[in-house]
């Protein structure tokens, strides 16, 4: 018992450290893939880490009208991502509190970070930030139904919404290709793209205020705060991609305690996340950003897939 607790603590810590590094590296990887396809050399994969170091060495700034919310938001964003990194089954099923963390909790802890950003944007008292906040809120509000219904569909199959047991159920079943599961995963994936502000929902590389969603929200941040936000966002991306790949292809995740299985788990996780990240950037190269008011159509489609998934989970059991 004691040693199990110790090992799950180690697993959580390992995941935490992995997440802290993997976030920026995944961003670097995605940019690299993009530039290679576009025929450029591109920056090194480690460039985002250097950017973070550079930003951290600058002075913090705040707009004249901002309050404590503005300076607390980056902290909340990163803290929520860190907590989820430690407590959700990414590399191992046996992390701290794994029997008490379920998908709904993960979703709502993520929301805590999103809400902090939405409020921080309004705190600056500028038009652009308000616009970004309004748009991000709209996209978020449309994403949540798809996400929640997809989660429900997946939980229906396993009879529980506990994350570790959901992933475990995936390990146990031989057929991964049930229609309910595939529909739920597609819906989940679209929602992940929207939630993390990737194309075709939002363009993370835009420099024009009027087309921005996420970038407009964080326009006022600089220095370590900006570093924290970039970092937090990248960790959220990796977290969601990691959860997605564990739900889709749970192979390799550590099902027992111990150094070896944890190592294998981390390696498998890295591979899976890298593959999905490369996939996402390949997809991004080939698509254009949707007009803002076409985004709800996309997300409503994801929602419909989720509903179809729930129905097929019920009808085909």
């Amino acid at each position, binding site marked *: 018992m004691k040693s199990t607790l110790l090992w799950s603590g180690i697993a959580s810590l390992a995941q935490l450290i992995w997440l802290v590094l993997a976030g920026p590296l995944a961003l670097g990887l995605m940019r690299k893939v993009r530039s290679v396809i576009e025929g450029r050399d591109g920056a090194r994969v480690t460039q985002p880490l250097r950017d973070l170091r550079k930003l951290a060495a600058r002075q913090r700034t705040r707009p004249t009208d901002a309050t404590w919310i503005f300076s607390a938001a980056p902290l909340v964003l990163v803290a929520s991502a860190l907590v989820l990194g430690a407590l959700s089954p990414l590399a191992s099923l046996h992390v701290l509190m794994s029997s008490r963390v379920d998908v709904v909790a993960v979703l709502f802890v993520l929301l805590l970070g999103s809400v902090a950003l939405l409020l921080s944007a309004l705190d600056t008292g500028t038009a652009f930030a308000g616009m970004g906040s309004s748009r991000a809120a709209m996209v978020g509000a449309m994403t949540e139904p798809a996400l929640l219904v997809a989660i429900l569909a997946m939980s229906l199959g396993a009879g529980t919404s506990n994350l570790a047991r959901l992933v475990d159920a995936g390990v146990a079943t031989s057929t991964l290709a049930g229609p309910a599961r595939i529909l739920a995963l597609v819906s989940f994936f679209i929602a992940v793209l929207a939630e993390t502000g990737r194309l075709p929902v939002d363009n993370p590389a835009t420099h024009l205020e009027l087309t921005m969603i996420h970038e407009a929200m964080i326009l006022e941040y600089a220095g370590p705060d900006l570093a924290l936000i970039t970092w937090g966002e990248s960790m959220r991306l990796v977290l969601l991609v990691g959860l997605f790949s564990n739900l889709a292809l749970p192979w390799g995740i550590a099902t027992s305690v111990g150094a070896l299985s944890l190592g294998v788990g981390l390696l498998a996780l890295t591979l899976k996340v890298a593959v999905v990240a490369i996939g996402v950037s390949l997809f991004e190269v080939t698509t254009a950003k949707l007009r803002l008011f076409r985004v709800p159509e996309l997300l409503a489609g994801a*929602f*419909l897939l989720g509903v179809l998934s729930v129905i097929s989970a019920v*009808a085909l059991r």
Partner: protein
Amino acid sequence: MKVSYVTPLDLAVVVVIVTAALTLWRQSLVASLRALSLQGVGLGVVAMVLGAHRRDPVLVFVGVLVLLIKGAAIPRLISRVVARDHPGREGSPLINIPASLVGAGLLTLLAFGATRGLVALIATPAARLIPFGVATTLIGFFAMVVRRRAVSQIVGLLTIDNGIALTAFLATSGVPLVVELGVSLDVLLAVAVLRVLAGHLHRQFNIQDLDQLRDLHD
């Protein structure tokens, strides 16, 4: 229940319903037609899988035929019309897309609720999928109600037809060859006629939206 045939069958049926949803989801007519052709393929695969499972060569043959006609011939025919005299987009539908997708979800739920008794009665692995056949029909109907373009109407009509065929395959041991052939050819004919008509309308009155036909009334 043999896992070996249930999973592919489930998947093929889901392809049919998802493509039905896709015709509502995408505004681009080309995407709609691609979905339609995929739908035909899914339907063909359903027939073939069922035929293989029941060791019924006629059903397999019907499947191949469906695949060829509905998966390839009809969509190609329509896409020629589109390529010739229609711009590639559906105008704004009568009900906006998120709302119509929610409507499609509700219809599927309705189909599920309404066919529960039938499913329990037949109780084969294939029969579990009947709700999706009915839902496909309903979604096709719904698409005809909310879409304006003549071509979208044809797509909706074909979706209805596919839904009916799917339900028939799943509920019984398959439609007799002659009937299926007859229906498929009927649809082919209807499409051809509609195509000619749409072309005429377009040339004579420069009409693409069916709503505009009301103006001809006066």
